[in-house]
């Protein structure tokens, strides 16, 4: 019974069209894990394992459904003034569908972050324009991951899957006649051709339980580049004076997710206290900045008799001389703790905390570009409660987890080498407040609810 269901669910997801990605890197995924400083590769479970460690999906023994919401508000400032960086907010959720194949436990998982402001945002700014590179645009994404995990031995779980993104290719063709003097008499035809092409990137993880108290984990997340290719072709007649042809092609990498590798562990420090640690290596050195490569051809021959004195013919914009963005690989340490403060027959209560330090990977912006970033210290707290068999209406385990995190990006000053820079020196600092909750319903085993005998 379980096998066809798992395969069916997996098949639906793995063959689906497009999806986007990846705010969990910055804001966490699931309130329990976020509250523990994201130091959970060896300790995650449930739907959050779809991001933190696919192998941990196999720890679930029954169907789990989770849904939650979080909102991360930014207070990012340059020269002491707020830059109005958009909040990242939306639904986090997912499911875990466990089963057995040849008596080997396995599970299928699906994780989703669904932002409620925008599914995706495309933004290719001039490289000179200051922007909070890691917070402004690249987190305005939908995240969808599908994974399979297996537990060949009671002490070993292995999992892998795919996350999905979409790159964009678009073309705009306009042709006809434009009447500059009487715009209403213009006759223009336009065609739009846009494709959202699926981009998939892999993730895989392993979890080893060394004992009942100690577990280790390793996770790999692949790299992806979200391309944005846009083209425009305009041709036609201008007020009977002359003709015009304008071809524009742009290419940019609108979103780049570096590959990551995580090593982590969890250790039961006391009967009800678990400590966790993760070290995440992020391959920022491969980063491709979201600057558009512009290729333009403009052909407007002068009318017979030359251009009137009052008209200056337009000129094609110059190609962009892209300045490379130098970034450095970073290892981000995460620390977490979970204390089961309350343990009764029907209720468990948890207190959680965590800390992580993310040193900025971006070199000081002393030149033309202004990819602004600062070191980030994140402190997290959380509470959780799990209720068992409360009612016959919902006789499953019901867990409610809350998290609150505070990220501080201490002030630092960017000093320009060239005094004639248009942006000049600036100070920058930031603060991020992230609040959220997750609700999980966990059933005992596939198709059976808690309290009912199979």
């Amino acid at each position, binding site marked *: 019974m379980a096998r066809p269901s798992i395969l069916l669910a997996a098949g639906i997801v793995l063959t689906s069209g497009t999806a986007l990605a990846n705010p969990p890197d910055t804001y966490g995924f699931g309130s329990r894990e976020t509250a523990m400083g994201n130091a959970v590769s060896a300790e995650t479970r449930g739907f959050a394992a779809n991001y933190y460690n696919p192998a941990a999906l196999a720890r679930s023994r029954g169907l789990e*459904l989770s*849904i*939650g*919401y979080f909102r991360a508000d930014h207070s990012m*400032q*340059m*020269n002491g*003034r*707020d*830059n*109005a*960086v*958009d909040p990242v*907010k*939306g*639904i986090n959720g997912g499911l875990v569908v466990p089963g057995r194949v040849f008596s080997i436990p396995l599970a299928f998982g699906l994780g989703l972050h669904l932002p*409620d*402001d*925008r599914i995706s*945002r495309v*933004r290719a*700014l001039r490289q000179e*324009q*200051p*922007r*909070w590179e890691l917070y*402004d*645009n690249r987190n*305005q994404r939908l995240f969808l991951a599908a994974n399979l995990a297996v537990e060949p031995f009671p002490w070993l779980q292995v999992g892998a899957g795919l996350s999905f993104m979409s790159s964009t290719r678009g073309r705009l063709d306009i042709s006809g006649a434009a009447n500059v003097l009487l715009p209403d008499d213009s006759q223009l035809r336009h065609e739009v051709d846009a494709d959202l092409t699926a981009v998939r990137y892999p993730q895989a993880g392993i979890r080893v339980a060394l004992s009942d108290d100690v577990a280790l984990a390793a996770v790999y997340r692949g790299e992806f580049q979200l391309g944005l290719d846009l083209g425009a072709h305009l041709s036609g007649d201008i007020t009977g004076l002359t003709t015009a042809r304008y071809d524009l092609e742009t290419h940019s990498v609108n979103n780049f997710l570096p590959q990551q590798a995580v090593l982590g562990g969890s250790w039961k420090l006391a009967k009800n206290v678990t400590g966790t640690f993760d070290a995440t290596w992020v391959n920022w050195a491969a980063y491709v900045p979201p600057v558009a490569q512009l*290729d*333009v051809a403009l052909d407007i021959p002068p009318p017979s008799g030359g251009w*009137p*004195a*009052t008209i*200056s013919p337009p*000129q*094609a*914009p*110059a*190609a962009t*001389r892209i300045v490379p963005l130098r970034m450095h690989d970073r290892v981000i340490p995460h620390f977490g703790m979970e204390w089961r403060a309350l343990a009764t027959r029907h209720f468990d209560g948890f207190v959680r905390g965590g800390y992580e330090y993310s040193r900025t990977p971006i070199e000081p912006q002393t030149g033309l570009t202004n990819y602004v970033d600062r070191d980030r210290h994140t402190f997290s707290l959380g509470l959780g409660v799990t209720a068992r068999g409360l009612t016959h*209406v*919902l*006789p499953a385990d019901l867990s409610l987890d809350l998290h609150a995190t505070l990220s501080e990006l201490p002030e630092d*000053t*960017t*000093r320009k080498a*060239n*005094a*004639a*820079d*248009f*942006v*000049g*020196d*600036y*100070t920058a600092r930031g603060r991020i407040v992230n609040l959220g909750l997750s*609700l999980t*319903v966990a059933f005992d085993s596939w198709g059976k*609810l808690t309290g009912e005998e199979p």
Partner: protein
Amino acid sequence: MSRLCSLAHVTVVLLALSCATTGAEGEGDRNLPTVGVGPFRKLAPDEVTGIAPFVFDDRVAIYREPAVLAEGQGATILYVVGKPNGKDVIVRTRADDGRAFYGSSSDFGKVPPIVLSADLPWEGPALAGPFALRAPDGVTLYYAAAGGIGVARSSDGITFRKELEPVLVRDPTSAWESTEVHAPTVYVLPDGRFRMFYASGSSIGEAESTDGVHFTRLGPDPVLRPALPAAPGSLLPNEKPPFDTARVGDPCASLRTTPSGRLHIRVLYTGADAAGATAIGFAARFGETGPLERQASPVYSVGAKESAPALLDIGDASYLYVQQDRRVDERLTYTAIAAAYAPGSTHLPTPVAFPDQP
């Protein structure tokens, strides 16, 4: 069934709590840092009274070479060169919004007052290149004339009293001062010393004074020379070569302290290439002395012989006033004062009425 219904209810409640009706517009680009010198965009037709981007024009007086001074309550004073009576003099005008200037061609029947005329032996027949500096006791106006750079002072900004001798004249021993010094611009260092940039030949030099009257050169070399031409093959497709390879002049200086605490000397200037095309450039340096570094891109370039920049820095935004050609038709083109604005993404409200007084 009831269990599924309960699950569905929980889900619906969470979704309802989390979903807004529509997504918000993306931001993240408010209050971005800038040094306040552009790039500028010329004013749009609905941002001026008259023909955009011109804010002060007269086909007889032919106003040019603006100098700008901020006055209280958002008012702007311009001192410009004009020849209302056939002789180049300096007149004053005023706008309450930086755009509708008293006595412009659209402000019928009003004539900007003449505040300075050539009447000293060393001045010759014409005055040029004014630069206005706010002083504790009024306004100090530097200007150029045939025999060098002079200065005049006023307590009300209208009636000026001149120093009888020029404050700076050409150094005949200088290798680069091939013409009489002109186009003065003055700023005051935090310790009260005066600094002047001036033009001569095809370059810009610098001099210093403790009283604003007696200036001495800071060195034998100019602080800004014309740019070197682009090396063959170094330009990308459609990339423009340097715009100021033949001449730099008309400096307009301003001083600020950067957020990192560095003294920042900003200079807008006119750059010209070998073909005579002009554009407004930006050069600057950190600290009190040394050559100016240039910005490769012009801050204002419209292909209309724009020159003689004057900067009005109003905090989050800046006005740039320049002289440029106003083409009326095939036969009539004259020079007038145009305005540009930065940041370019901001659209200005409709201009206010012309003021009653200059």
